């Protein structure tokens, strides 16, 4: 599937999407590290996952291969990687399970609203939310706070209401306001 960007067709098989896909490779070693109580290694793997998230945008810029599909793939990869890691650290007792459940629930609601937004537009598209971009970056940090045992309760319980506020704001923009 190739998507058109400003009159130019961009193949989904491009360097930026390859960097995005490579983030999945950090999940098995992260799982191993958490299961073996290797806090420092777990922190390293989630750090690599987060840095690759920044690197894919850079690759898209350098190789001029930005596309709507790439943005959507990036958002889906964020959801899978961070969702998996959050469940992992909560299941292992490194993060409060209730807070993680709320974050996952809000994340699923966000994904559902984005699907509805794409349906309203009639094409694969990722809603550009400046606030949610920041919240997603915070999510990456949440996993690092859990693996590093760094003020876990403080960071997790402040994150939940913040994400809820952003979700309500974006719900109006995606579902109510004209597209």
């Amino acid at each position, binding site marked *: 599937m190739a998507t058109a960007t400003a009159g130019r067709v961009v193949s989904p098989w491009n360097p930026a999407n390859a960097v995005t896909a490579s983030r999945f490779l950090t999940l098995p070693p992260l799982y191993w590290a958490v299961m073996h109580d290797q806090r420092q290694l777990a922190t390293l793997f989630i750090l690599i996952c987060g840095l690759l998230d920044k690197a894919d945008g850079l690759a898209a810029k350098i190789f001029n291969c930005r596309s709507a599909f790439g943005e959507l793939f990036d958002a889906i990869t964020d959801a899978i990687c961070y969702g998996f890691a959050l469940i992992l650290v909560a299941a292992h007792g490194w993060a409060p399970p209730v807070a993680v459940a709320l974050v996952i629930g809000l994340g699923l609601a966000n994904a559902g609203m984005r699907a509805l937004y794409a349906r309203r537009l009639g094409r694969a598209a990722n809603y550009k939310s400046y*606030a949610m*971009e920041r919240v997603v970056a915070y999510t990456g940090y949440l996993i690092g706070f859990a693996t590093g045992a760094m003020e876990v309760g403080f960071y997790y319980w402040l994150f939940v209401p913040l994400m809820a506020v952003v979700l309500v704001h974006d719900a109006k923009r995606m579902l109510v306001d004209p597209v």
Partner: protein
Amino acid sequence: MTQLVSPLVFKWFLTLFTGIVAGIWFVWDAIKLARLRGNDAVTADKRFGYAIGIVIGAIGVIGCLKFQGVI
């Protein structure tokens, strides 16, 4: 348990990495918010996003201070 670095170094790495990123984040979004002009929908989205960024930056820095026992 494999230790890449000593617990003290690890603690300081977490503190500095989080604190520096959060601090820059706070200042960066504060500057962008101050420079923002206009009243259209996209500008309103940006305004809200930058405000959230400032809050996240502040939370990050406060967490670091708590982690180091400063507050």
